[in-house]
C-alpha cells in the first residue's frame, strides 16, 4: 500500500469512527471537520468513498441557512447489554465448552439460567 493510500484509508477510518460515534442522531458534515484534523476537501472525498462502499448514508439538511449533509453510519457498534445475563458471555470455560466434559447441555450455569426463566406456572 502506498503512503497516499495509507493516509486515505486512515482518514476514512477516522471519519467512519466519528460517524459511528454519533449513533442514531448522525452528525453534520460541518461538525465533522471541527472534530477532525483533516481539511474539508480531503474529508469530503473520504465521505464519498464511504458512501460508495455502502458504509454510510448522507441526508441533505438545511443548517444555519446553508445546505449541508447529515451523515449516518449503517454499521452500529455491537452492544453487550442484551447478552450480559447469558452465562456463556463472560464464562472462563467457554473455550473448552463443547470440546470436553463441559457442554451447553450439561452446564450448571446454563441450567440455573434456564430455571430462572421458567417463571410461575411451570408445573412445580
Amino acid at each position, binding site marked *: 500500500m502506498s503512503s497516499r493510500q495509507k493516509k486515505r484509508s486512515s482518514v476514512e477510518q477516522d471519519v467512519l469512527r466519528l460517524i*459511528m*460515534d454519533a*449513533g442514531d442522531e448522525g452528525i453534520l458534515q460541518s461538525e465533522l471537520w471541527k472534530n477532525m484534523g483533516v481539511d474539508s476537501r480531503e474529508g469530503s472525498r473520504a465521505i464519498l468513498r464511504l458512501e460508495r462502499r455502502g458504509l454510510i448514508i448522507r441526508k441533505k439538511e438545511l443548517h444555519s441557512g446553508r445546505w449541508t449533509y447529515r451523515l449516518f453510519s449503517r454499521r452500529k*457498534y*455491537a*452492544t*453487550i*447489554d*442484551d*447478552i*450480559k445475563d*447469558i452465562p*456463556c*458471555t*463472560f464464562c472462563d470455560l*467457554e473455550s473448552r*465448552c*463443547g470440546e470436553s466434559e463441559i*457442554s*451447553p*447441555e450439561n*452446564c*450448571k450455569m*446454563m*441450567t*440455573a439460567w*434456564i*430455571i430462572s*426463566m*421458567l*417463571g410461575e*406456572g*411451570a*408445573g*412445580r
Partner: protein
Amino acid sequence: MEQPPQGGVEARGRESPLDREFMKVIRYLGGEEAVRVVEALRRMGEATDEVLANEVGIRINDVRKILLKLYERGLLSAIRVQDESTGWYIFRWRAQPDQVDTFIRSRRRKVLEKLKRRLSYEESRSFFRCDNCEEVYMPFDEAMERAFICPRCGAPLKGIDNSRAVERIRELIKKLEAE
C-alpha cells in the same frame, strides 16, 4: 520507538459510545477492581503492573490476574521491554478500547452457537424438577434412571413446562441471528 498514548477518554475530550461499552465490559469481566486498574492505565497511557498496583492500591498479584484476563480477551496490549537497572524483562500494558467492538461481536457469535445447542436440547425432551430443591432440573431419561426420585432430598420429581425458557432462548437467537 515510544508510541504516544492512544486516544482515550481524555484525548478525545468526551466519552464515545465505544469507551462506554469498553468500560462496561471491563466491569462485567473483572468488577470494580478491574475498572480502577483500567481507568488508571488509560490516564497513564501505558504502565507496568508494579506502577499500576501502586497507583490503585491493589495487590500486585491481583493486578496481574486482571491484566492477564483482559489481555487474553484482546482488550489490553502488552509490550515487553528490558528494565535498564535490573536487566529483567518487564511488560508495559496499554488499554485497547478500540478492540471492544471485535470482542463483543465474537462473544455474540459464540453465545449464539451455545444457545442453539441448548435450545435443541430443551426442545427435544421433557424435564423434571423437585418441589424442594431449586437446582434440580433433569431430562426424562435421567429422571427415569433415578426412578423419578430427587437425588438430593428423596421427594418425587415432577414434570414441568419449560416453554417460557424455550421461548426466551428462541427470541435471543432470533435477535443475534438478525445481525
